[in-house]
């Protein structure tokens, strides 16, 4: 499964996110920022999970749960669209 990030969503190096279509702003932590970047690169959810497991000291069940929670938040704010 892939998620599309709208063009009007700008993310800075500090993890500050400005959605130019709605004027909303958000602050992401390092991992949140990384997930958005990977989505922007067009990676599937499975590929993102694999990358994160390789990079961080986390078990797959915890990662899947946290990733699911994060994507739910993004969808709630209409920051991503399912492709």
């Amino acid at each position: 499964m892939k998620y599309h990030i709208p063009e009007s969503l700008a993310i800075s190096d500090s993890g500050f996110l400005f959605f130019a279509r709605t004027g909303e702003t958000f602050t992401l932590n390092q991992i949140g920022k990384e997930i958005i970047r990977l989505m922007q690169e067009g990676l599937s959810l499975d590929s993102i999970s694999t990358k994160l497991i390789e990079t961080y000291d986390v078990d797959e069940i915890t990662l899947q749960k946290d990733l699911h929670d994060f994507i739910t938040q993004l969808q709630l704010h209409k920051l991503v669209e399912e492709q």
Partner: protein
Amino acid sequence: MKIGVTGLNATDNPGPGVPVIRSLQEATHIKTELIGLIYDSLEPGIYMDNLAQKNYLIPYPSSGLENMFERIKYIHDKEHLDFIIPNLDSELFGFVKLKNRLNELGIKTFLPTFEQLMIRGKDKLFDFCTQHDIKVPKNILITSQNDLYSIPKHFTYPVVVKGIFYEAYIANNFEEVITGFNKLRVKWGFPIIIQEYIAGSEYNVVALGDGKGNTIGAVPMKKLYITDKGKGWAGVTINDSTLLELTHKIMQKTEWQSGLELEFMKSNETNEYYLLEINPRFPAWVHLATAAGQNLPEALIRLALSENIDPFTSYKIGTIFIRGSWDFITDMSVFEKITTMGEI
């Protein structure tokens, strides 16, 4: 070019005069000299450094148009005004009526027509929007307390209780409607408007129309901070093609001449924009548009001078305004001068 500007009441319900002057000071195509036209000797704009080079008290429109005209004529004799930009809703009808006489004096204006002012009236907006397929909250007009009993036939609570010119209250039940109704009745008279409450986020657009249906400039803004009076105290320019399309449609259908502000509510439920109000003058945040690349007050003057100007096509997205309070310290003699002499 010497320009008279009203609305220097930069209070907690700010008039647009100060940001209009700031925009005109930043004009690049015209050289401006600014004269403040004030209704009260405590309008904060009078006391701001480097704003208007001179300020004159003018009488409230309610004291009669002839009074106002005579006072402007006196100011014109001294200052040789080339242009006046009225910035307050309540004075616009008067200035529209005086337009030709001011023109005869050599003072130009760029105002909406009487008919355009009527279309956007809070009691007429619903008809205009439904006629042109623009989403608008349902509303009914209240002309007596008895009419309030018909509310349950039309709406479920909460509803918005609005004055004909200014102010609105959200009422969650009949008792709150009565409270709002009484406040607005005393202050603004009838009719009072009962409007469907749309839960959502507020978005505004400042725009300038050339009077032929064309939009010369438009900048949408999301309010980031709203005061308890409902005033945007911070906002950011955004990129929303739907809002701009709606703006172009409204400018085209009204053939709006002058600046305006469109107030929209984006419904949480449907994600659609509902037009809440058309304010027939620049808003108090118009300087944000100037900072973002569209100096609409300057463009208004150039339009009035029949200059051919290309419509603005872009603005800087993500430009933010944050309003603040600032105490101006002055001497009693300054206040005395403006109060007793009517000019400073």
